[in-house]
């Protein structure tokens, strides 16, 4: 049992001991302990809020990637309809890479989501424990002699301290996780910007040749469409049409 009981103990005990500054007066120790708990609860809240912020940032990245997938899909269709199979293929290749990235990102976001729920549930539990401690400390002050009180104080404070240390650890892990995800996303972005993955992973913002060519094709066919529409209108329209046509051209 020695091994099992010792696991994780260093991590927890060092955190717990920092919470209790033992004073000669049990009443003081108790009040300090409670004050410290309330203070640390604020850190816990802030920690959870940070995890939520990181998660939101990742969700934004995911949305951006989703748009990229839709865009690449559209480009592929456009290219195909223009008989440019080579461009369609390139766009579809990029789309596949974006989809793979998106899937792994979404998996991680889901994981964070459930972690966040667990953190919030545990925060609620911690708040209850601190509240219990507050009630208990008045009872201890009123009912026990100084020597007895010290023992009771340690028990109660360690109980709260353990909960707090656990939650702190969980928040730390969640933060590390989002940090890793961000670092990875950042690294991929940098490589893309540098053009390292020219062929398949460059999902950048329309600066490369394929994007330009696709964009030109897009404008080209748009012009064709408008021309076709105008021709149709001219065919069936009355005497006012030439002026309207001129106005549209200037606006475009």
């Amino acid at each position, binding site marked *: 049992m020695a091994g099992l009981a010792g696991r994780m103990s260093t991590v927890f005990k060092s955190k717990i001991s920092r919470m209790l500054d033992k004073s000669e007066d049990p009443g003081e120790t108790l009040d300090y302990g409670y004050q410290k708990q309330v203070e640390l609860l604020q850190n816990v809240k802030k920690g959870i809020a940070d995890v939520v912020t990181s998660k939101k940032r990742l969700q934004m990245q995911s949305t951006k990637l989703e748009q990229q997938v839709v865009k690449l899909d559209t480009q592929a269709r456009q290219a195909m309809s223009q008989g440019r199979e080579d461009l369609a293929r390139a766009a579809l290749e990029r789309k596949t890479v974006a989809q793979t990235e998106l899937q792994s990102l979404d998996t991680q976001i889901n994981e964070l989501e459930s972690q966040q729920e667990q953190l919030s549930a545990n925060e609620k539990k*911690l708040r209850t424990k601190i509240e219990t401690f507050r009630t208990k400390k008045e009872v201890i002050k009123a009912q026990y002699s100084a020597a007895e009180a010290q023992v009771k104080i340690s028990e109660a404070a360690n109980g709260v301290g353990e909960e707090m240390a656990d939650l702190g650890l969980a928040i730390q892990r969640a933060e590390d996780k989002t940090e890793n995800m961000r670092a990875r996303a950042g690294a991929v972005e940098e490589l893309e910007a540098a053009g390292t993955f020219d062929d398949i992973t460059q999902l950048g913002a329309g600066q490369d040749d394929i994007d330009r060519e696709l964009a030109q094709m897009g404008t080209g066919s748009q012009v064709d469409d408008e021309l076709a529409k105008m021709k149709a209108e001219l065919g069936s329209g009355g005497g006012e049409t030439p002026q309207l046509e001129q106005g549209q051209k200037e606006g475009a």
Partner: protein
Amino acid sequence: MIVRIAGEGQFRLPDEDAERLNELDNRAVAAVDSGDEAGFRELWREMLDLVKTDGQDLDGDDLAESDVILPPRDISFAEAKAEFTGEGLIPD
């Protein structure tokens, strides 16, 4: 016996389960020692299942300390190597 699973709360476990948990823990240590990650994962899952199935979830009104603290569920094998050693990190 009160067992905490890091990140998941405290559970009051019947005494007869303590022996079983300790046995699983010893085997987990052996698996980690021999670099058997799959074996460790299986034992680790069994340990968590045992605590969650047989244990009674303690609520926030209880200020009891845990007798045993188990690492977080998503522990990596590298972390397990540091945690699951013969004597724990520091023998009590």
